[in-house]
């Protein structure tokens, strides 16, 4: 009975959903994320799905997952081991039960444990009955039976009724985590009700009934002895929405266009896991965002460079293999010295690698993946919401320095979501001062010279086609300061030095990095991009435990922040956890001649906090 279930307060809960790919795991995960966020929790989530669109149903290979962490405090990752696993079929139980925290809860649909389904995944006996899940708090719920009972009066096929099990589970979870049921009811109406984009009234009614049945199930059965209540997290005041990294980057592109007064332009080609960015951007035609889906990755970047040459604010979006194809053209933007932002949502490599899985293994490609001496700035987003700011900043630097800039995100933050404090357009930095096209009226008596440079930034004077009397030729051959082709040895030396100095100079104006913890200590853990969350969480916990550990996060991974070398020198040991075989470690070693230790993980999966904690403890000799 309800009275028997006591309400326990919790600081954070990690929940994982797994089921057949195509069975709505991402949807239910996103719904619970939104529900928790609306209720004031901080949330971080991580979708995890196979690269096949519909892998064979009921097989372990076809399992799609979604993990989330909700808390009453700032949450940096989607969590380590799940406290609660919702596994919708035997394949999901087989796939995911091993991840669950000892003593954690496994909610599953006992109706799906047919002999055939179990045989398909190699269960010789029913794991719900044979004791193989001992040590977990298993809640085997006959979901199909209960949903069909609840929808007995509805004129719809059983298969359609069975699909309502996800909302039934939402009901159970809503009760279990003491969330406001009205938010879910509103959501169902919004999604399927009469005012929805595509109203499906019967689906709305069926899901509402299934959801209520789930709530009642939690309340009236004695299956659950405890409920959990998470307080609202202390987060900055403001208007929030839940956002994925890819959507945040798309918004930043449109916003940077508006704030610069230039037309935002994306030349791109679909590639997982970056495609969602292009999807969302393609909807934003009403804010003048032009998206060109080109014939290949090369055309994606080339159309963007063409647009940039005409004075648009140009972007190209991609993932690892696509970045590889764009290399020559990235070099073109670099030697033409025109602004361009390349958003690279990294995935497992090399080559096709792991299309749907996260990795940070394009850092060295971003650094060195062009012929010649071709340095460009690289900024890494550290959370889904941060993709907005990182992309916006990249646009500013690209404009200011007339250079291509790479934004590194990854599958984890690109597709994961977290609450985002929505800025007002009026609060965003005005980018118009960085546009600064060369116009004859601003330079009376002067003749336009295409590679004359600003003494401070070394950005070249830039006149776009259509500017009266400024017609000139630029190209990818080496040139002198006037833009004329030059193969003169000294000129090539000087121009190469200019291009490098332009990027190096950026370091001088970048904000220094801040140390999380003591300024001088035994171990410094350096995070970049997607490892920020796990490292921040781990370092916070270690500091709480009194360990001599501090952390630093790199936002600009090239050039390095001005104070980084000095900070590193104050620590006995330096650890860099990264989702690659030690790429940043290599760069730090080369730049600062310091014995950086690398914690490598290339499993298509982000770091868990405990992995960082264990490594730090090992380094401390504990």
């Amino acid at each position: 009975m309800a009275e028997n279930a006591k309400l326990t307060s919790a600081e954070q809960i990690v929940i994982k959903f797994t089921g057949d790919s195509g069975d709505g795991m991402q949807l239910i995960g996103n719904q619970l994320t939104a529900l928790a966020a609306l209720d004031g929790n901080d949330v971080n989530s991580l979708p995890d799905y196979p690269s096949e669109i519909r892998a064979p149903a009921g097989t372990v290979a076809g399992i799609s997952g979604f993990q989330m962490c909700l808390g009453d405090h700032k949450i940096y990752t989607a969590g380590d081991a799940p406290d609660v696993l919702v596994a919708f079929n035997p394949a999901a139980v087989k796939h995911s039960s091993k991840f669950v925290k000892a003593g954690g809860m496994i909610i599953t649909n006992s109706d799906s444990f047919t002999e055939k389904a179990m045989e398909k995944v190699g269960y010789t006996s029913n794991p719900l009955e044979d004791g193989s899940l001992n040590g977990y708090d298993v809640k085997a719920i006959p979901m199909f039976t209960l949903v069909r009972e609840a929808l007995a009066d509805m004129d719809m096929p059983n298969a359609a009724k069975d699909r309502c099990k996800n909302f039934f589970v939402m009901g159970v979870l809503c009760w279990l985590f003491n969330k406001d049921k009205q938010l879910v009811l509103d959501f169902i109406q919004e999604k399927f009700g009469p005012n929805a984009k595509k109203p499906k009234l019967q689906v709305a009614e069926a899901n509402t009934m299934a959801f209520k049945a789930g709530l009642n199930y939690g309340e009236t059965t004695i299956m659950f002895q405890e409920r959990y209540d998470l307080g609202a997290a202390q987060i900055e005041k403001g208007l929030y929405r839940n956002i994925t990294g890819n959507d945040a980057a798309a918004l930043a592109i449109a916003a940077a266009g508006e704030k610069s007064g230039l037309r935002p332009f994306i030349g791109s080609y679909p590639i997982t896991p970056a495609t969602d960015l292009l999807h969302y951007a393609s909807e934003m035609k009403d804010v003048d965002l032009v998206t060109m889906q080109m014939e290949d990755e090369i055309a994606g970047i080339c159309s963007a460079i063409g647009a940039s040459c005409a004075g648009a604010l140009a972007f190209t979006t991609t993932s690892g293999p696509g970045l590889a194809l764009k290399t020559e053209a990235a070099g073109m933007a670099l030697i033409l010295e025109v602004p361009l932002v390349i958003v690279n949502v990294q995935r497992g490599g090399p080559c096709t690698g792991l299309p749907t899985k996260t990795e940070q293994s394009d850092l060295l490609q971003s650094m060195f993946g062009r012929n010649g001496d071709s340095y460009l700035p690289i900024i890494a987003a550290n959370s889904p919401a941060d993709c907005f700011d990182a992309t916006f900043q990249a646009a500013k630097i690209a404009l200011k320095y007339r250079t291509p800039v790479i934004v590194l995100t990854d599958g984890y933050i690109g597709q994961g979501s977290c609450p985002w404090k929505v800025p007002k357009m009026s609060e965003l930095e005005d980018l118009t001062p960085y546009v600064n096209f060369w116009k004859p009226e601003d330079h009376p008596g002067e003749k336009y010279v295409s590679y004359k440079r600003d003494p401070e930034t070394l950005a070249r004077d830039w006149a776009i086609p259509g500017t009266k009397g400024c017609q000139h030729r630029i190209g990818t051959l080496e040139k002198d300061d006037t833009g004329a082709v030059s193969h003169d040895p000294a000129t090539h030396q000087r121009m190469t030095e200019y291009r490098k100095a332009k990027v190096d100079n950026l370091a001088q104006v970048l904000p220094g990095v801040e140390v999380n913890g003591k300024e001088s200590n035994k171990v410094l853990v350096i995070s970049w991009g997607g490892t920020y969350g796990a490292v921040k969480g781990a370092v916070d916990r270690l500091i709480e435990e009194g360990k001599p550990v501090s952390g630093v996060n790199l936002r600009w991974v090239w050039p390095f922040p001005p104070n980084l070398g000095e900070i590193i020198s104050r620590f006995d040991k330096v650890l860099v956890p990264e989702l690659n075989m030690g790429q940043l470690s290599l760069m730090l070693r080369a730049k600062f001649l310091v014995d950086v230790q690398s914690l490598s993980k290339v499993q298509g999966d982000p770091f868990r906090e405990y992995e960082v904690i264990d490594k730090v403890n090992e380094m401390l000799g504990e």
Partner: protein
Amino acid sequence: MADTQLTKKYFASDAEVKWCPGCGDFAIMNAVRQGMVAAGKPRDEVAIVSGIGCSSRFPYYMETYGFHTIHGRAAAIASGLKVANPKLDVWVISGDGDSTAIGGNHFIHAIRRNVNLNYVMINNKIYGLTKGQYSPTSEVGQISKTSPYGVIDYPMAPLRVAMGMGATFVARGLDKKMKLSEEICIRGAKHHGFSMMEIFANCVIYNDGAHNKITDKETGDNYLIIVRDGEKMIFGADNQLCLVQDGFAIKAANVADVADADILVHDEKNVEMATLLTAMRPDAGLPLALGIIYANDSKKPYDDLIYEQLAAVKSKRGRSMDDIMREGHTWTV
């Protein structure tokens, strides 16, 4: 000369032209300048994009905005440039290697989108800048540095490809026929859509005489036909030959042997006729078609459509950035 007076000279830059003496590109540059005069835009509203190759040095010789880019990608770069500023008169100068080999994908898709570009593909059937390798348009048997025993690849017919991609303007010129090349560039410049202009050029160093069959003073005219809209398709050194229909095909006949009414009249809006005309080859017993083979502006250019769609979505949805950023579930802390 007044700066505003649109003449060929007005479009010429001060840079020293570095093509080999006798190169066909000189004549073509002259024709392109004539096309720019016809387009009527001041030179600071003209942009030329080129890739890599001998022909791609072109922008340096033109007093316009010029972009000498990378091998094969000029069509994609020019597409972005034109979309970002449709007011510009945008020309692409490319070669057979640049367009049909490394850049084949961009070339065909720019045609398919019908981006409003003036695309001049100078076809000398050889890689000149890299000093003499065969290209996708080289003939079977052609000797080059990479085909010392003769080319065994079958050649590509760029204009047939263009027709296949739904081109809206297809023309072929020849360096030696300067007036015709000018005519083509003028019409191409005025065409509202992608103007595909293939101009045969002679590479005096690496493929001299590649077009001898059609340029021979005595017999050349027996192997080419200059088509003109609304005119009977008659050709030959003495205008003794003509084209007639032969089932679903076209065949050459002696004017003397056919009824006047049976001689085909060129219709530049007829897509089927153009498809047949672009396929004609002297070695298959048909004259090479020169002139404006197809011109039909019934399809809107991509750059027009993009702005129409932007305007339509704006009037239908009309969201501001602040609106968009606040869509979906939001909550206030």
